[in-house]
């Protein structure tokens, strides 16, 4: 085993929040390491095939506000602008009182590579899992990682947990919590070869009718009734999102239970295959359809969360509570998906953005541990608004800045190369 590598900031988890945190920390002058378990960055935004970015625009009533209004400056705006400029996204697209960007998961993975490659102070490890976190009293000293049997140790002044599952926090013995009833997971896959022009509103309903009939006839399992269809901006491509019930044999949904997680992945694939075969048989629009992409991983909306210096509550978001240390904004309704039969939405008063204080991004009991993304410090209900990708980009950026500043304040070895415009 080689000698420990020393960084200012280590970011665990390369999803949207981790990407934002790592690039921002590096841009703030911190020598930064980003650790990701898959072979690509982006997490849910790429590997789970989530194909829309929510939480980038203000909530609005069309009559009062006819155009979408971006809410974040900085990193989220940069990501949106670059995705749009590259043709990797279209939008904003309006649905009810929200606007979202429809993006190609592959485009996000490519953009993440470009963003990280541009930062000289940033090192990226892919195919790399956290295995331990060592503490000195109240602070994390180092983490150990494993890359296909190769072990490495990384020391840092500050750590950011953007694993989505508070995996670093739990390894470091930091306080965490998990709701008894979680938001349901989603299994998302892409179809190619679809005559998307035939999928108008009534076309979708005919599919709904046929799927109910196929379930009644025993041709498809009831799990397909959690299916949503959305055409992408690319010819012949649609995404199917299956909100998953518990797989057979699984009584309690817990994505951190290894057996449950394996069952979920196999259950999702097991629904996808017969569903596509049935669609191809029943509908001319799907006759040439094929599964163009299965997700690298099932989409998880909620699991373990860090207990921070402050835990955001639903009422904070719904009533538009102000904080002295606000570092990011939330512009998504509380979107509860505890049942696989569709969401329950709660909108804030006046559709105002919710404020996210820095204290919700700092561990209550580990001094140099920050967090962002879906495992930030929030109640189950508040997390149902804060988990969306636009907000993950915003909280990631805020955590990246805060961790870099913390590292500087404790006198770690900061890069001395000049910062500023090239």
């Amino acid at each position: 085993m080689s000698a420990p590598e020393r960084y200012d900031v280590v970011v665990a988890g390369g999803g949207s929040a981790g990407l934002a945190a790592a690039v921002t920390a590096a841009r703030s002058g911190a020598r930064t390491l980003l650790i990701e378990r898959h072979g690509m960055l982006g997490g849910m935004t790429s590997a789970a095939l989530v194909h829309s970015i929510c939480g980038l625009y203000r909530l609005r009533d069309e009559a009062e506000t006819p155009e979408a209004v971006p809410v974040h400056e900085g990193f989220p705006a940069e990501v949106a602008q670059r995705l749009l400029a590259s043709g990797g996204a279209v939008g904003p697209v309006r649905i009810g009182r929200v606007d979202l960007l429809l993006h190609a998961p592959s485009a996000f993975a490519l953009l993440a590579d470009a963003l990280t490659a541009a930062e000289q102070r940033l090192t990226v490890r892919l195919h790399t899992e956290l295995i331990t976190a060592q503490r000195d009293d109240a602070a994390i000293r180092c983490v150990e990682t494993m890359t296909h049997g190769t072990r490495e140790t990384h020391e840092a002044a500050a750590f950011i947990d953007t694993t989505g599952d508070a995996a670093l926090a739990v390894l470091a013995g930091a306080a965490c919590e998990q709701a008894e009833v979680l938001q349901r997971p989603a299994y998302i896959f892409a179809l190619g070869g679809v005559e998307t022009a035939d999928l108008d509103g009534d076309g979708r309903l005919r599919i709904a009718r046929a799927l109910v009939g196929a379930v009644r006839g025993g041709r498809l399992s009831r799990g397909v009734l959690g299916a949503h269809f959305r055409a992408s901006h690319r010819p012949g491509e649609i995404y199917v999102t299956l909100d998953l019930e518990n797989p057979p044999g699984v009584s309690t949904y817990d994505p951190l239970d290894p057996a449950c997680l394996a069952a979920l992945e196999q259950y999702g694939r097991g629904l996808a295959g017969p569903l596509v075969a049935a669609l191809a048989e029943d509908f001319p629009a799907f006759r040439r359809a094929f599964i163009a992409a299965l997700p690298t991983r099932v989409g998880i909306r909620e699991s373990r969360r860090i207990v921070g210096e402050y835990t955001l509550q639903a009422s904070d978001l719904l009533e538009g509570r102000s904080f002295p240390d606000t570092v990011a904004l939330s512009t998504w309704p509380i979107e509860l998906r505890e049942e696989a039969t569709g969401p329950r939405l709660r909108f804030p008063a006046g559709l105002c953005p919710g404020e996210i204080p820095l204290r919700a991004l700092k561990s209550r009991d580990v001094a140099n541990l920050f967090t962002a993304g879906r495992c930030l410090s929030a109640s189950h209900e508040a997390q149902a608004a804060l988990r969306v990708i636009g907000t993950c980009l915003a909280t990631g950026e805020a955590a990246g800045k805060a961790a870099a500043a913390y590292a500087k304040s404790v006198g770690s070895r900061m890069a001395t190369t000049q910062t500023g415009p090239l």
Partner: protein
Amino acid sequence: MPSSSPASPSPEFLPSALAELESGLSVLIAERLPELPEGFTPDTNLYDAGLDSMGIMHLLLAIEDRYGILIPEADVSQKNFCTVGNLAALLHARLRPA
């Protein structure tokens, strides 16, 4: 698991009056659409309250089980599922003795 075909309707579930159908459907729909405003009417737009194609699948199952009918593909349209009133009119026509 849903039964392979809708159950035969029990007599008390054969309301002929439109108003009865509307109130029965309102209960079924309110259970599945938590976004429906309180005091919604047969004319409230269900799509505005969050009804989507997934919701329609679950609603179809529930309606067919409750009233013991199969709603044919031709009747599953955006217009028919837009309001409780439209759905009740559709069912009323289907349930009426020939």
